[in-house]
């Protein structure tokens, strides 16, 4: 659809002549867009390049997008010392289990709400809307999680509080609503119950939306910092964002905290390690990014929120 429009537009744009001034503006627009794209990616390239450079090159050359001499010291450091590797492991655990919990709660709530014959549907939908409009705020939630449920220093404090994101749940609900009735009715003729229909019919045909919402939840878990800071004090349970923040902002932690033998490297490649830790925390997002993009550009996200 969009593509055919594009072709159509180009053809006609060529037919109606542009004035020279107009062409200058057009070139300018292309340049501005290119500038925006470059400004967006340059910091990432800079950090990736720096993470592979030797410490000497990092102090001698101010800026480069490709190191003269490739060094893996920073990554060796990361993967031999505890902090960043443990942070990565913990983040993977938090993300994987957390996303499964998100999807369980979101789908089981979305399904009944998506059925027109579900008595009480309006009541429960309004309940969701109230949670979207108003919240108790940070302090009551903190007291609940830390002092009433005693979830401090467990990952439940990261998994449970955000288990349902109302916006994501509504996107799933709208998708369920859009599935043709006939599929369900056929199964009902055969005497299947609601659980069977949900599990064997609705969920399998909803794979695209389930995949995209899972990715959104996963990205949120991977990126979450503040909750981890509030609820997790145990150093062995730190997630990667906490480790990254410590390595970047508290410079001294590198040499004093590790039990790593520096004999092999001489001095700690401090700047490169900072960059490499940034890269390691970013790469998982960049790996899933193409999959996420596939869905949100399709309009799954934007279009369905309105309904």
């Amino acid at each position, binding site marked *: 659809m969009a*593509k055919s429009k*594009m072709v159509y*537009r180009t053809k*006609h744009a060529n037919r109606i002549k542009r004035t020279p001034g*107009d062409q200058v503006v*057009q070139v300018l627009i*292309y340049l501005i*867009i*290119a500038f*925006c*794209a470059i400004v*967006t990616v340059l910091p*990432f390239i800079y950090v990736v390049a720096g993470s592979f450079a030797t410490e000497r090159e990092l*102090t001698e050359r*101010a*800026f480069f997008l490709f190191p003269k001499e490739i060094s893996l010291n920073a990554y060796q450091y990361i993967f031999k010392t505890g902090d960043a590797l443990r942070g990565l492991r913990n983040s993977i655990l938090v993300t994987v289990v957390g996303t499964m919990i998100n999807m369980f709660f*979101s789908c*089981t*709530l979305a*399904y*009944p709400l998506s059925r*027109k*014959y*579900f*008595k009480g549907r309006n009541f*429960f939908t309004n*309940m969701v809307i109230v*949670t979207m409009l*108003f*919240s*108790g*705020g*940070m*302090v*009551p*939630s*903190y*007291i*609940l999680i830390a*002092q009433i449920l005693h979830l401090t220093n467990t990952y439940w404090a990261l998994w449970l509080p955000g*288990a*349902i994101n109302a916006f994501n749940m509504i996107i799933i609900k709208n998708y369920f*609503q859009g599935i043709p009735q006939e599929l369900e009715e056929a199964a009902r003729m055969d005497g299947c119950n609601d659980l069977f229909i949900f599990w064997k019919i609705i969920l399998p045909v909803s794979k695209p939306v389930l995949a995209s919402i899972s990715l959104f939840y996963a*990205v949120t878990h991977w*990126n979450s*910092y*503040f909750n981890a800071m509030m609820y997790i004090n145990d150093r062995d349970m730190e997630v990667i964002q906490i480790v990254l*923040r410590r390595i*970047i902002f508290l410079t001294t932690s590198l040499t004093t905290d590790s039990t790593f033998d520096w004999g092999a490297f001489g001095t700690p490649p401090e700047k490169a390690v*900072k960059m490499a830790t*940034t890269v390691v*925390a*970013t790469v998982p*997002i*960049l790996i899933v990014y193409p999959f996420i*993009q596939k869905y*949100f550009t399709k309009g799954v996200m*934007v*279009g369905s929120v309105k*309904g």
Partner: protein
Amino acid sequence: MTKTKTAARSSTRKKPVNGTWKHALQSHKWLYILIIPGVAYMIVFNFLPMLGLVMAFQDFSPYNGDSAIDALIHSPFVGLDVFKKFFTGPDFWRLLKNTLSISIASLIFYFPMPIILALLLNEIRCSWYKRVSQTLVYIPHFISMVIVASLTYQLFNTSDGYIYHLLQQVMGKNAPDFLSDSGLFVPLILGQNIWKETGYGTIIFLAALAGVDVELYEAARVDGAGRWKQMWHITLPAIKATIVIMLILKVGQILNTGYEQIYLMQNSMNRTVSDVFDTYIYTKGIEGGQYSLSTAAGLFKSLVGMIMVIGANKLAKLFGESGLY
């Protein structure tokens, strides 16, 4: 909305629903079992904290009882005293000033950015160029605030930050130190937001632009309308409603500067300007244990947000826009 209504009507016509709850529970037992986890979640994690708002009207202390719930029951009610203390206290006006300077600056400088970028992207005819640049500018939205903060630190710090180094070559000793100069805190926060969210923010406007009939542009061009006239008379009207909705939402967020970003960029040098309601609630409430005071601050913040949304919506309707609801 209307679609769901008609669909609901047609389904009731096909299969007359037996009105009793007993029947509903019997025939759709599994639906009621499936909804239990979600409803339990909302009760515990959304509605219980709302009950916790009574702390704002109490002189709450966790030591007033054996458990937090017990303490909540036994803490004395003090009416609006906590609010009085909050509004007349030494922090209120400073917090208000800092919060408003960030959010108003963001309304002026950040808010138009996605609109401008969307308009520019809309002018791009070469489809691969458009696709590639869109792909690139969306990326930072998915990056964590910690990574944004660490990229900022690595580029702007005064010892080996590359951008600082560049600025030093141009401006010499006057090179701006974004990380600790309190006068540059608001530009720093804005710059981060613009870098992170401008690209992703274009999606909603581009979606609105995709619905514009290309023949309108054709007709305008035949009538001799140039690029600016086309933008003014076709493109902008097409996204006006979306702009208004986004503006209402943004106005509702006027006291919500977010705590994560500001907390990450805050340091002892810029604290005079970087203390906002959100960070205050965290430091006073969770680090400092002044539960009643910070709950009152939070309640004030969300009430103002609600009032602003309702007000902005009314205003939009006065000007003939459809608004949020």
